[in-house]
């Protein structure tokens, strides 16, 4: 595929087209990803998450400054929610990063969630692969991080930076069960605002409940708009990353992620095959009616369907 070569050469237009291919779930997607797969695995992936308006995009902008000054090629994927009503979206994260728009070594891509829950877009993992294969050293993902379910960022990022701000009140309670637990590094942004000490105390207390861990979660105070605390933050990230690596945690994390991916992949592949065979889309209303009227019972009916499907497949295999 011509696109593969152009992506591997790092051609910007090709990279952008490849992400679209992946994002749309184009029929060529699987072949494409398989063709670049052996060139992946060199990039480091940071996830930035936290509640709306916490300053995530502003922070990413400042982090790009730092990493560019070290000569790194940086890519950003910024995810915003799609409207559940129209399916449209306003993707506004990159507005805060436009100072990098014309830097040939910075690539920024906005993605809409397109109905995918979990805080990232459904094809984020493959989009990361495109950027990785294209030679970006660092990939930063800005995700939606509002509550208990927006935690899929841990399935794509090596390090999760959780951004919190003063004055969230009860919100911090709401975050506790979900997003609050997935941070590797806690960034308390808008330190210029009142209530920063209170937030720091709350976060430290919460972290103290996690018990002993040799990889203690760092807490860093920043003021992203004023560019305060950013250099310290990058040092903290580097330090944490090297500890992740030497303690073998990174390998462990990545393996866990790949295991998750395999599970997802199998489920979606099997679903596709089964739905095609049973003609689910066509039949589902009919089945629902039969279930509601009590004409069939759920387990025996579908166990039989699956059994028939398996017998059919093995017959086909025999005749081939």
């Amino acid at each position, binding site marked *: 595929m011509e696109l593969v070569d152009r992506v591997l050469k790092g051609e910007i237009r090709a990279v952008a087209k490849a992400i679209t291919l992946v994002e749309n779930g184009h029929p060529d997607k699987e072949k494409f990803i398989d063709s670049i797969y052996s060139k992946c695995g060199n990039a480091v992936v940071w996830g930035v998450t936290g509640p709306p308006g916490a300053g995530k995009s502003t922070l990413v902008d400042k982090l790009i400054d730092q990493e560019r000054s070290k000569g790194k090629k940086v890519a950003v994927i910024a995810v915003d929610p799609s409207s559940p009503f*129209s*399916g449209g979206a*306003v993707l506004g994260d990159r507005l805060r990063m436009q100072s990098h728009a014309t830097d040939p070594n910075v690539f920024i891509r906005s993605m809409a969630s397109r109905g995918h829950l979990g805080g990232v877009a459904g094809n984020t993992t493959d989009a990361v692969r495109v950027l990785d294969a294209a030679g970006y050293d660092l990939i930063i993902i800005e995700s939606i991080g509002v509550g208990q379910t927006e935690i899929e960022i841990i399935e794509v990022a090596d390090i999760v930076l959780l951004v919190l701000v003063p004055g969230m009140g009860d919100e911090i309670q709401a975050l506790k069960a979900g997003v609050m637990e997935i941070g590797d590094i806690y960034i308390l942004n808008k330190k210029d605002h009142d209530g920063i000490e209170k937030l720091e105390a709350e976060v430290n207390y919460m972290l103290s409940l996690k018990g002993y861990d040799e990889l203690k979660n760092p807490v860093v105070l920043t003021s992203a708009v004023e560019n305060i605390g950013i250099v310290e933050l990058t040092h903290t990230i580097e330090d944490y990353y090297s500890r992740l690596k030497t303690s073998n945690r990174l390998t462990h994390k990545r393996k866990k992620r790949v295991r998750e991916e395999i599970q997802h992949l199998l489920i979606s592949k099997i679903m596709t095959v089964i739905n095609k065979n049973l003609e689910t889309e066509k039949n589902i209303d009919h089945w629902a009616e039969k279930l509601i009227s009590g004409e069939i019972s759920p387990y025996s009916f579908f166990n039989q369907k699956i059994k028939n499907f398996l017998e059919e497949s093995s017959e086909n295999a025999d005749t081939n």
Partner: protein
Amino acid sequence: MSEKVRILIAKPGLDGHDRGAKYIARALKDEGYEVIYTGLRQTPDSIVATAIQEDVQFIGLSLLSGAHKELFPKIVDKLKEQEASDIHVFGGGVIPDRDIPFLLEHGVEAVFTPGTPISDVVKFIESVK
């Protein structure tokens, strides 16, 4: 497979407020499009680079300052330079009727003046996408 029309709404030039641009961005979102919004004072270079990275099919330019005759064609030319002429450009804002033919001749495919119903913009997008 799920394709979505992606549109960059950009404000070149120096004018200092973006109410109109934000309005059109939200209206297009409500029509089901994915709209990338980049804020005030974008240069032609940053607009073209952004459109390419975001792989949009459309760039909607909004301008109030009167520099449209200079800036719109410049953006069209830069797209050509980058071999990205497949990206459609349309414009809006305070644009006198007498300037519209000039813009259309210079590669801007449609111009929407204030008060144009959003359905006209949608019709345009759907007809060329």
